[in-house]
Protein backbone atom coordinates (compact mmCIF):
# COMPACT_ATOMS: atom_id res chain seq x y z
CA UNK A 1 0.00 0.00 0.00
CA UNK A 2 1.45 3.37 -1.01
CA UNK A 3 0.07 5.32 1.94
CA UNK A 4 1.61 3.00 4.53
CA UNK A 5 5.02 3.20 2.91
CA UNK A 6 5.23 7.01 3.09
CA UNK A 7 3.97 7.55 6.63
CA UNK A 8 6.49 7.07 9.41
CA UNK A 9 5.50 4.30 11.80
CA UNK A 10 5.89 6.20 15.13
CA UNK A 11 3.61 8.98 13.93
CA UNK A 12 1.08 6.43 12.74
CA UNK A 13 1.13 4.70 16.13
CA UNK A 14 0.66 8.01 17.99
CA UNK A 15 -2.18 8.94 15.64
CA UNK A 16 -3.98 5.62 16.08
CA UNK A 17 -3.58 5.62 19.87
CA UNK A 18 -4.93 9.17 20.20
CA UNK A 19 -7.83 8.39 17.87
CA UNK A 20 -8.71 5.38 20.02
CA UNK A 21 -8.55 7.58 23.14
CA UNK A 22 -10.80 10.17 21.48
CA UNK A 23 -13.28 7.52 20.33
CA UNK A 24 -13.51 5.85 23.75
CA UNK A 25 -13.94 9.22 25.46
CA UNK A 26 -16.57 10.45 23.00
CA UNK A 27 -18.67 7.28 23.02
CA UNK A 28 -18.28 7.06 26.79
CA UNK A 29 -19.55 10.62 27.18
CA UNK A 30 -22.65 9.76 25.17
CA UNK A 31 -23.41 6.54 27.02
CA UNK A 32 -22.41 7.44 30.60
CA UNK A 33 -25.35 7.27 32.97
CA UNK A 34 -23.88 9.63 35.57
CA UNK A 35 -22.84 13.23 34.69
CA UNK A 36 -19.59 12.84 36.67
CA UNK A 37 -18.55 9.90 34.49
CA UNK A 38 -19.41 11.95 31.40
CA UNK A 39 -17.13 14.77 32.65
CA UNK A 40 -14.24 12.34 33.14
CA UNK A 41 -14.76 10.90 29.64
CA UNK A 42 -14.68 14.48 28.36
CA UNK A 43 -11.23 14.94 29.95
CA UNK A 44 -10.10 11.79 28.13
CA UNK A 45 -11.29 13.11 24.76
CA UNK A 46 -9.67 16.51 25.37
CA UNK A 47 -6.32 14.83 26.11
CA UNK A 48 -6.60 12.84 22.89
CA UNK A 49 -7.21 16.01 20.90
CA UNK A 50 -4.23 17.64 22.67
CA UNK A 51 -2.02 14.75 21.48
CA UNK A 52 -3.22 15.33 17.92
CA UNK A 53 -2.45 19.04 18.33
CA UNK A 54 1.15 18.19 19.31
CA UNK A 55 1.48 15.84 16.37
CA UNK A 56 0.37 18.66 14.06
CA UNK A 57 2.97 21.04 15.50
CA UNK A 58 0.60 23.18 17.58
CA UNK A 59 2.43 22.76 20.90
CA UNK A 60 1.13 25.98 22.46
CA UNK A 61 -2.48 25.12 21.68
CA UNK A 62 -1.99 21.61 23.09
CA UNK A 63 -0.74 23.11 26.37
CA UNK A 64 -3.62 25.61 26.45
CA UNK A 65 -6.05 22.80 25.67
CA UNK A 66 -4.91 20.81 28.70
CA UNK A 67 -4.67 23.81 31.05
CA UNK A 68 -7.90 25.58 30.06
CA UNK A 69 -10.16 22.68 29.16
CA UNK A 70 -9.02 19.81 31.36
CA UNK A 71 -7.84 22.14 34.12
CA UNK A 72 -10.55 24.78 34.25
CA UNK A 73 -13.63 23.96 32.18
CA UNK A 74 -14.07 20.37 33.34
CA UNK A 75 -13.39 21.37 36.95
CA UNK A 76 -16.14 23.97 36.55
CA UNK A 77 -18.46 21.24 35.25
CA UNK A 78 -17.61 19.00 38.21
CA UNK A 79 -18.14 21.87 40.66
CA UNK A 80 -21.60 22.56 39.25
CA UNK A 81 -22.50 18.86 39.28
CA UNK A 82 -21.50 18.61 42.92
CA UNK A 83 -23.07 21.94 43.91
CA UNK A 84 -26.42 21.06 42.43
CA UNK A 85 -26.33 17.45 43.59
CA UNK A 86 -27.62 16.33 40.21
CA UNK A 87 -25.38 13.29 40.07
CA UNK A 88 -28.37 11.04 39.92
CA UNK A 89 -28.73 8.38 37.34
CA UNK A 90 -30.42 9.79 34.28
CA UNK A 91 -33.74 8.09 33.68
CA UNK A 92 -33.83 6.71 30.14
CA UNK A 93 -30.81 8.72 29.06
CA UNK A 94 -31.48 8.05 25.40
CA UNK A 95 -34.88 9.70 25.60
CA UNK A 96 -36.87 6.46 25.48
CA UNK A 97 -38.62 6.98 22.19
CA UNK A 98 -36.74 5.47 19.30
CA UNK A 99 -38.18 7.95 16.78
CA UNK A 100 -36.28 10.89 18.20
CA UNK A 101 -33.04 8.94 18.54
CA UNK A 102 -33.48 7.57 15.02
CA UNK A 103 -34.03 11.05 13.59
CA UNK A 104 -30.98 12.34 15.42
CA UNK A 105 -28.96 9.42 14.08
CA UNK A 106 -30.10 10.07 10.50
CA UNK A 107 -29.19 13.74 10.83
CA UNK A 108 -25.74 12.92 12.21
CA UNK A 109 -25.11 10.38 9.45
CA UNK A 110 -26.05 12.99 6.83
CA UNK A 111 -23.67 15.53 8.38
CA UNK A 112 -20.91 12.91 8.49
CA UNK A 113 -21.48 11.90 4.85
CA UNK A 114 -21.21 15.52 3.79
CA UNK A 115 -18.06 16.04 5.86
CA UNK A 116 -16.48 12.88 4.45
CA UNK A 117 -17.11 14.13 0.91
CA UNK A 118 -15.55 17.46 1.80
CA UNK A 119 -12.61 15.83 3.59
CA UNK A 120 -11.71 13.50 0.74
CA UNK A 121 -12.27 16.03 -2.05
CA UNK A 122 -10.23 19.05 -3.02
CA UNK A 123 -10.24 20.38 0.50
CA UNK A 124 -7.09 22.55 0.76
CA UNK A 125 -7.04 24.56 -2.42
CA UNK A 126 -6.89 28.00 -0.80
CA UNK A 127 -4.04 30.46 -0.95
CA UNK A 128 -1.12 29.50 1.31
CA UNK A 129 0.11 31.56 4.27
CA UNK A 130 -2.43 34.37 3.98
CA UNK A 131 -2.17 35.42 7.62
CA UNK A 132 1.54 34.63 7.88
CA UNK A 133 3.82 31.64 7.61
CA UNK A 134 3.43 29.08 10.39
CA UNK A 135 6.86 27.53 9.85
CA UNK A 136 8.90 30.75 10.19
CA UNK A 137 9.99 30.13 13.77
CA UNK A 138 8.95 28.49 17.02
CA UNK A 139 5.23 27.84 17.40
CA UNK A 140 4.78 30.16 20.40
CA UNK A 141 6.86 32.92 18.81
CA UNK A 142 4.89 32.89 15.58
CA UNK A 143 1.57 32.85 17.44
CA UNK A 144 2.60 35.65 19.78
CA UNK A 145 3.84 37.85 16.95
CA UNK A 146 0.55 37.39 15.12
CA UNK A 147 -1.69 37.89 18.16
CA UNK A 148 0.08 41.04 19.33
CA UNK A 149 0.28 42.67 15.90
CA UNK A 150 -2.32 41.59 13.33
CA UNK A 151 -4.93 40.38 15.81
CA UNK A 152 -4.34 42.88 18.61
CA UNK A 153 -7.86 44.34 18.56
CA UNK A 154 -9.66 40.94 18.72
CA UNK A 155 -7.25 39.95 21.48
CA UNK A 156 -8.18 43.04 23.51
CA UNK A 157 -11.85 42.36 22.84
CA UNK A 158 -11.51 38.87 24.35
CA UNK A 159 -10.42 40.57 27.58
CA UNK A 160 -13.67 42.55 27.57
CA UNK A 161 -15.59 39.33 26.77
CA UNK A 162 -14.05 37.52 29.75
CA UNK A 163 -14.89 40.40 32.10
CA UNK A 164 -18.48 40.41 30.83
CA UNK A 165 -18.70 36.62 31.29
CA UNK A 166 -17.42 36.79 34.87
CA UNK A 167 -19.80 39.61 35.82
CA UNK A 168 -22.69 37.81 34.11
CA UNK A 169 -21.94 34.55 35.91
CA UNK A 170 -21.80 36.30 39.28
CA UNK A 171 -25.12 38.05 38.66
CA UNK A 172 -26.78 34.89 37.33
CA UNK A 173 -25.71 32.64 40.16
CA UNK A 174 -26.30 35.15 42.93
CA UNK A 175 -29.22 34.18 45.10
CA UNK A 176 -31.99 36.54 44.11
CA UNK A 177 -33.56 38.60 46.88
CA UNK A 178 -30.77 38.32 49.43
CA UNK A 179 -30.25 42.07 49.73
CA UNK A 180 -33.87 42.99 48.93
CA UNK A 181 -35.46 41.32 51.94
CA UNK A 182 -37.88 44.21 52.35
CA UNK A 183 -39.48 43.54 48.98
CA UNK A 184 -41.40 40.48 50.12
CA UNK A 185 -44.30 41.14 47.80
CA UNK A 186 -42.24 41.56 44.64
CA UNK A 187 -43.57 39.57 41.68
CA UNK A 188 -40.33 37.61 41.37
CA UNK A 189 -40.46 36.48 44.96
CA UNK A 190 -44.10 35.44 44.89
CA UNK A 191 -43.54 33.70 41.58
CA UNK A 192 -40.67 31.77 43.08
CA UNK A 193 -42.76 30.76 46.07
CA UNK A 194 -45.47 29.43 43.76
CA UNK A 195 -42.91 27.41 41.89
CA UNK A 196 -41.45 25.99 45.06
CA UNK A 197 -44.84 24.88 46.32
Amino acid at each position, binding site marked *: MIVASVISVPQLIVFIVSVVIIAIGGVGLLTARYPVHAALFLVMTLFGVAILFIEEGAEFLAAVQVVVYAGAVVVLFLFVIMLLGVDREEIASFAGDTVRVGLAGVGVVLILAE*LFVVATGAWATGAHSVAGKLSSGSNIGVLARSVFTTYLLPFELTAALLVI*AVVGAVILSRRMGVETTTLDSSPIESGRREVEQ
Partner: protein
Amino acid sequence: MTIPGSWYLVVAALLFGLGTFGVLTRRNVIVMFMSVELMLNAVNLTFVTYARMLNDVGGQIAVFFVLVVAAAEVVVGLGIIVAIFRHRATVTVDDISSLKG
Protein backbone atom coordinates in the same frame (compact mmCIF):
# COMPACT_ATOMS: atom_id res chain seq x y z
CA MET B 1 6.33 11.69 5.97
CA THR B 2 3.54 12.99 8.14
CA ILE B 3 -0.02 11.77 8.45
CA PRO B 4 -2.17 13.20 5.61
CA GLY B 5 -4.42 16.05 6.67
CA SER B 6 -7.57 14.33 5.44
CA TRP B 7 -7.21 11.69 8.17
CA TYR B 8 -7.36 14.41 10.83
CA LEU B 9 -10.38 15.91 9.08
CA VAL B 10 -12.17 12.56 9.19
CA VAL B 11 -11.42 12.21 12.92
CA ALA B 12 -12.72 15.75 13.47
CA ALA B 13 -15.89 14.90 11.49
CA LEU B 14 -16.50 11.82 13.62
CA LEU B 15 -15.96 13.81 16.82
CA PHE B 16 -18.37 16.49 15.60
CA GLY B 17 -20.95 13.79 14.81
CA LEU B 18 -20.61 12.33 18.31
CA GLY B 19 -21.14 15.77 19.81
CA THR B 20 -24.18 16.44 17.63
CA PHE B 21 -25.74 13.12 18.59
CA GLY B 22 -25.16 13.88 22.25
CA VAL B 23 -26.82 17.30 22.04
CA LEU B 24 -29.82 15.83 20.20
CA THR B 25 -30.42 12.77 22.39
CA ARG B 26 -29.24 13.41 25.95
CA ARG B 27 -31.67 14.90 28.45
CA ASN B 28 -29.33 16.22 31.12
CA VAL B 29 -28.44 19.85 30.35
CA ILE B 30 -24.93 19.46 31.75
CA VAL B 31 -24.19 16.45 29.54
CA MET B 32 -25.60 18.37 26.55
CA PHE B 33 -23.16 21.15 27.42
CA MET B 34 -20.29 18.68 27.42
CA SER B 35 -21.39 17.49 23.97
CA VAL B 36 -21.19 21.09 22.75
CA GLU B 37 -17.61 21.19 24.04
CA LEU B 38 -16.96 18.04 22.00
CA MET B 39 -18.21 19.78 18.85
CA LEU B 40 -16.06 22.84 19.57
CA ASN B 41 -13.03 20.61 19.93
CA ALA B 42 -13.75 18.90 16.62
CA VAL B 43 -13.81 22.31 14.92
CA ASN B 44 -10.55 23.26 16.67
CA LEU B 45 -8.93 20.12 15.30
CA THR B 46 -10.11 21.07 11.80
CA PHE B 47 -8.66 24.56 12.20
CA VAL B 48 -5.27 23.23 13.31
CA THR B 49 -5.23 20.73 10.43
CA TYR B 50 -5.90 23.42 7.85
CA ALA B 51 -3.30 25.67 9.48
CA ARG B 52 -0.73 22.92 8.97
CA MET B 53 -1.82 22.07 5.42
CA LEU B 54 -1.83 25.72 4.25
CA ASN B 55 1.16 26.71 6.41
CA ASP B 56 -0.97 29.55 7.77
CA VAL B 57 -0.87 30.93 11.28
CA GLY B 58 -4.48 32.15 11.03
CA GLY B 59 -5.91 28.71 11.79
CA GLN B 60 -4.12 28.45 15.11
CA ILE B 61 -5.10 32.03 15.98
CA ALA B 62 -8.73 31.08 15.35
CA VAL B 63 -8.39 28.12 17.74
CA PHE B 64 -6.94 30.50 20.32
CA PHE B 65 -10.02 32.72 20.13
CA VAL B 66 -12.40 29.75 20.06
CA LEU B 67 -10.85 28.56 23.33
CA VAL B 68 -11.48 31.96 24.96
CA VAL B 69 -15.06 32.14 23.73
CA ALA B 70 -15.71 28.55 24.81
CA ALA B 71 -14.46 29.30 28.32
CA ALA B 72 -16.73 32.36 28.54
CA GLU B 73 -19.65 30.33 27.16
CA VAL B 74 -19.18 27.59 29.75
CA VAL B 75 -19.08 30.13 32.59
CA VAL B 76 -22.29 31.89 31.51
CA GLY B 77 -24.04 28.62 30.59
CA LEU B 78 -23.32 26.96 33.90
CA GLY B 79 -24.48 30.15 35.64
CA ILE B 80 -27.79 29.87 33.78
CA ILE B 81 -28.06 26.18 34.70
CA VAL B 82 -27.48 27.01 38.39
CA ALA B 83 -30.13 29.75 38.20
CA ILE B 84 -32.63 27.38 36.55
CA PHE B 85 -31.92 24.70 39.13
CA ARG B 86 -32.63 27.19 41.95
CA HIS B 87 -36.08 27.84 40.46
CA ARG B 88 -37.10 24.42 39.17
CA ALA B 89 -34.87 21.91 41.01
CA THR B 90 -34.23 20.01 37.79
CA VAL B 91 -31.69 20.01 34.98
CA THR B 92 -33.63 17.72 32.66
CA VAL B 93 -34.58 19.53 29.47
CA ASP B 94 -37.99 17.85 29.23
CA ASP B 95 -39.01 19.57 32.47
CA ILE B 96 -37.76 23.01 31.37
CA SER B 97 -40.43 23.74 28.78
CA SER B 98 -41.94 27.02 29.99
CA LEU B 99 -40.97 28.85 26.79
CA LYS B 100 -42.86 26.37 24.64
CA GLY B 101 -45.49 28.11 22.50
